[in-house]
């Protein structure tokens, strides 16, 4: 799980596993990708974070040679996705966003089939897929369509791994999966990463950023930021406060009308408040707000300065185009 583990990879650390520059993709009148650039290092667990419709699937489809970019270039394992498709196709593992196995075939039959497609067999690759496959092996004769969401994803992951790919592209593997399975799935990815595999994962869940080495935030076809999760959080430019009151709805309205408010959003049980004055002392700001809410008759407002999370940063970046990096 540490950075040194990644040194086990035989890949040359100087060559990016994925190198994307100025990628543009249009579908009719809509721009799905609007000049996307980033790179993924070998052995890295790279997260692509963003809401639906942000361009994640389009990007992954270009990287897996399923779509051609309208402009810009994309290289995977040093190969051009537009011209070297057959070379890339034998070396990448891909799990599309939708469950893409055969529901009428059994677990074992699905896996055997995908092994045969790549000219190998489950037995030959067993050591690699074992940690994942063993979890679903008790159900090997069950039809894939009858598996739970979490088990389906594990089977799909096994199928994507069965030919020992050099890089894995997983498009929203945790969407529609319950919390327990979601964690297990990320544990599996951490295990694969520790084995030196390069993995690119897309997800709409901001809280999954922490499981990645680096993340790219993507929205409306544009990359908002690329950094380590900690690096992204450090970039949050404004003081941020957590406010908890018994009357959420009214407090939102009150805080929005506070003269220095930059943004007020519900955040689970509490509210997150950012102040337009970037240089104000957070502790002083907290007492200022507490006093304000008190004056407005809000009972026992709890106000404390907090560190921004990935979601706060995402919203800040969405909000203000000038905050875009580089």
């Amino acid at each position, binding site marked *: *799980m540490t950075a040194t583990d990644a040194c086990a990879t*035989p*890949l*040359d650390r100087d*060559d990016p596993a994925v190198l994307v520059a100025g990628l543009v993709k249009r579908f009719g009148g809509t721009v799905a990708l609007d000049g996307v650039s980033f790179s993924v290092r070998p052995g890295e667990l790279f997260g692509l974070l963003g*809401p*639906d*419709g*942000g361009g994640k699937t389009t990007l992954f489809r270009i990287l897996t040679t399923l779509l051609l970019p309208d402009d810009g270039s994309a290289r995977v*394992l*040093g*190969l051009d996705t537009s011209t070297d498709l057959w070379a890339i196709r034998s*070396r990448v593992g891909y799990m599309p966003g939708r469950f893409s196995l055969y529901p009428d075939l059994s677990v074992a039959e699905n896996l055997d089939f995908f092994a045969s497609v790549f000219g190998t067999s489950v037995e030959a690759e067993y050591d*690699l*897929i*074992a*940690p*994942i496959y*063993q*979890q679903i092996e*008790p159900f090997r004769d069950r039809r894939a369509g009858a598996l*739970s*969401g*979490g088990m389906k994803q594990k089977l799909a992951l096994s199928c994507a791994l069965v030919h*020992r*790919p*050099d890089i894995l592209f997983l498009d929203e593997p945790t*969407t*529609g999966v*319950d*919390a*327990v*399975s979601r964690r*297990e799935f990320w*544990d*599996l990815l951490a*295990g*694969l990463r*520790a*084995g*030196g*595999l390069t993995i690119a994962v897309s997800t*709409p*869940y*901001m*809280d999954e950023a922490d499981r990645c080495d680096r993340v790219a935030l993507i*929205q409306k076809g544009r990359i908002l930021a690329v950094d380590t999760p900690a690096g992204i959080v450090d970039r949050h430019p404004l003081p941020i406060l957590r406010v908890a009151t018994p009357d959420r*709805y*009214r407090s*939102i309205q009150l805080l929005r009308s506070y003269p220095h408010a930059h943004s007020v*959003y*519900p*955040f*689970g*049980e509490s509210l997150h408040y950012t102040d337009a004055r970037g240089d104000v002392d957070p502790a002083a700001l907290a007492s200022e707000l507490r006093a304000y809410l008190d004056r407005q008759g809000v009972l026992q407002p709890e106000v404390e300065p907090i560190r921004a999370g990935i*979601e706060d940063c*995402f*919203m800040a970046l*969405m*909000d203000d185009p000038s905050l875009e990096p580089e």
Partner: protein
Amino acid sequence: MNRPENVSGPAPPRELRLAQIQPAIEVRSLTRRFDDFTAVDAISFDVQAGEVFGFLGANGAGKTTAIRMLIGLLAPTSGEARVAGHDVRMEADRIRRRIGYMSQRFSLYEDLTARENIRLYAGIYGLSDAAIRERTETLLNRLRLDSHGDTLVRSLPLGWRQKLAFSVAMVHEPEIVFLDEPTGGVDPITRRQFWEMIYEAAQNGTTILVTTHYMDEAEYCDRVSIMVEGRIAALGTPAELKAEFGASTIEDVFVQLARPTAEIAAGMAAGSAGTPTSRTMPSG
């Protein structure tokens, strides 16, 4: 059909005033068996009027079966439930008139325009033509969709579609709205705008029941229940549950409750994943 003045007028209908006295939803030992499988096992809870109640559970925990009983689509094997004061067994028709339903996937007709969708649902619930016209325009206006009223729903951004779906579910001013996994996949800001719409509806007395298996949505609810294998394993405010289970998020609470069923995964945590073969990358 029998209360058009209620749905268009600003005054709270009589039923609503009644609902404020008694819980909006009362569930007592509600049970449903399919052959020898007990999908819902004697669950009991109340939801107060104007409350945002999260109904959580993994897929297959019994959420859907429970909800189907509450909206009168499925008869309970035993136990009782009253929704908006009506018995789910005997008065399913009345219940369906008083509730709204929004599911992330199926609520709107994507090949109809925003305006047509609103009209359709308003018509289904028996609003008068004048009320439909007026309601449609206010609604589009409030959603800032005025200029997109004649856009096909399928070409609206997901966030707008969800807000529209919620408004459509509210078009007949129901006392209780069932939301099925409402905010999956939208961007964080739109998601919060959506929750603010929910809070506003709750502020005005509407009871909101959110079913979801996304635990972070639970944090936005006033109270949550977590179903595990047909039973309610935990019930309380998010803060109470987090304190009770010593967890920092509802997701942690859920994982603690559901973990025993996922025991097979235990061997995995060691992270003994294999090593891919030594293929070297072509240079350049």
